[in-house]
């Protein structure tokens, strides 16, 4: 039965997918967690072209190890002489730092879609000696550059917005990881070298709703506090940490973001910050968030909406959390 099933599965796999799977399997083990993450927040963004690892004209070596003896474009893989990774995205899509670092250079003087030989960019220097480059950004006057020269940035922090400045034929992010070779910055292939936190790479912050201790309406007596917890699965690329930096992850009020909550209990860090993740939670693990709910307002039915905030710089996509909120009914003490 098992072998029949396996045969069916293998037969159903497209040859290209099988080849890609084999190539990836042969390419070596996945690197440690928390190395680099994808430089954007939208998990729907996909790669269009990767790095050509063969410097010769007419010969292309893509991230899977396949060699193409031509100069044609190969969507999903590579085009001849390409030094980075192209991620198509609409104009003004947020672009995220792939790792903690310091802004080493910025350019924002070109128009968001100004064609030319140079374009807008942010370059970040990292503690491991590598640099990451975010190119073709929107103009600074158009909100394209979100960080300043010499500014410290944390992974997942928005560094700018996508554009189409420079040698660009449609809005996309050109992303590079560079290494310092004798004072020269030389491009490397983060996909081939498995620099992503996971394989394939993941966006920095993402989570999925799992469960609560009480998934239905929470009843709390006026003036009293009850304990509540909710579990989210870490489906992003960074480890969640309760208090340490980087990776600090908190649960705060949402809609609007960070509003003062009438249900803030004594264990809340502030009027909007309900709690931190209870324990260190690597990608693919489930993290618990425990917090009190105080029946402060008068009797009635309410709901309080929450979202996750990482590093103090970026809220999660609330849709990913299933639009998480807690229905609360406050009752009088005598009821």
């Amino acid at each position, binding site marked *: 039965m098992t072998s029949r099933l396996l045969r069916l599965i293998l037969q159903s796999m497209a040859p290209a997918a099988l080849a890609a799977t084999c190539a990836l399997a042969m390419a070596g083990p996945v690197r440690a967690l928390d190395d680099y993450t994808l430089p954007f927040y*939208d998990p*729907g*963004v996909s790669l*269009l072209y990767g790095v050509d690892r063969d410097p010769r*004209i*007419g010969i292309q070596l893509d991230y899977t190890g396949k060699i193409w003896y031509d*100069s044609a*474009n190969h*969507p999903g893989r590579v*085009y*001849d*002489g390409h*030094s*980075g990774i*192209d991620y*198509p*995205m*609409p104009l003004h899509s947020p672009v995220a730092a792939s790792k903690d670092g310091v802004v080493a*250079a*910025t*350019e*924002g*003087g*070109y*128009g968001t879609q100004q*064609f*030319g*030989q*140079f374009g807008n*960019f942010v*370059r970040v220097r990292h503690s491991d000696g590598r640099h990451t*480059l975010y*190119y*073709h950004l929107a*103009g*600074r*006057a158009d909100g394209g550059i979100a960080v300043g*020269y010499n500014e410290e940035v944390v992974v997942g922090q928005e560094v700018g917005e996508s554009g189409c400045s*420079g*040698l*660009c*034929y*449609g*809005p996309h992010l*050109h992303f*590079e990881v*560079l290494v310092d070779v004798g004072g*020269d*910055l*030389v*491009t490397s292939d983060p996909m081939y070298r498995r620099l992503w936190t996971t394989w394939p790479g993941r966006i920095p912050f993402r989570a*999925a*709703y799992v*469960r609560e201790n009480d*998934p239905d309406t929470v009843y709390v007596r006026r003036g009293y506090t009850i304990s509540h917890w909710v579990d989210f699965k870490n489906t992003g690329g960074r480890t969640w940490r309760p208090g340490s930096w980087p990776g600090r992850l908190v649960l705060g009020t949402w809609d609007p973001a960070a509003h003062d909550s009438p249900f803030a209990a004594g264990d809340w860090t502030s009027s909007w910050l309900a709690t931190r993740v209870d324990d260190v939670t690597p990608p693919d693990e489930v993290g618990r968030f425990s917090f009190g709910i105080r029946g402060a307002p008068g009797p009635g039915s309410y709901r309080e909406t929450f979202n996750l905030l990482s590093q103090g710089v970026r809220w999660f996509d609330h*849709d990913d959390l*299933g*639009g*998480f*909120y807690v229905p609360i009914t406050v009752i009088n003490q005598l009821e």
Partner: protein
Amino acid sequence: MISPSRVPARRRAATLRPRQARHLSPRIRALHLTRPSLLAAVGIVVGGLTLGTTLARQPAGSPSTAETDPTAAGMIQLVDHGQLAPGLAEVRLNFATTVSPAMGANRLLALAPDGATAAVASQVGPAPATLSLAHRDGSQQRVSLPGLIGAGFAPDSSWLAVIDGAGAIWRVPSAGTAAGRLADGPFIGSPIVEDGGSVIALRVSSIEAPIVSRLVRVGPDGRIVALVGDELVYGAHLMADGSIAYAAHQGSHTLLKELVGGTPRLLADLGEDAVNVTVDADAAAVAFERSGQVLVRRLADREEIPLGPGMRPEFAPDGRSVLVELASGSALIAVDGQRLASFNSQAAFAACAARCRP
């Protein structure tokens, strides 16, 4: 694995919301637009049709040339405007279909110092392209290249240095006859050809995303010598006294420097977001673009004069006016801000080519 039945109804509905839908259309559009080949193909089709040329993909290292019937549609016409500014010429592209030069299609790359020849690219970029050499007498040659980045004429106008899509420099006779490869590079920018046949260009590690761009001199024998240590040079200009002025990016600022006797000297710190910098032949004033506005700054007193919206300013040889590129066409503006003339086409200064072209 979480069973859907365990998720409360109020959350299940939200969880199952098809959130991808709102992102799908723009992404699909972007996917199609991002392919360099697509726009290049449009450029090739337009250029090919209007120039009456059928383009074949040329293998690297073998540009080919073809003669064009001067009576055919799609001729490139040079119109002299020397009465407005020394050496000023308008380059009219009499194409049936107009593709905006703003996206790199049908771009004027260079005008010969004698004003007799204009070099026009069917498409700027890495995809196969055609270099049209249009002469004032109405004749025209085409050179097919594996991509096209920039071009600059020799001081005697007899040949031009051309950077192809892979970044190699070619020596192309103005008559469009057999081209010869000078150096592999990759290079970008508008090369400057010096007396004696050496070429000043920008050597890069990446053509699409240049963050390392070294100012180098390529000798007639192809030997490459670095001129300055600056990491990211945006462009260079030959000055009247023979020195080289260049714009370099440092941190977030753009600096204008002058190379005298092999030693760089700071002329001006233009601050953040000053791009497409050009300097007049006497290094008395600098023009640049910031957030879509063109400005002229006098170096002596740092006074800045706004010239209005525009791109890629270029000083007239006499330094009295600036040619700026507009969304459609170009304009000649006096350095005091007065608009002198507007053109529906691209324009350039012929006499300036050897001395003050970026």
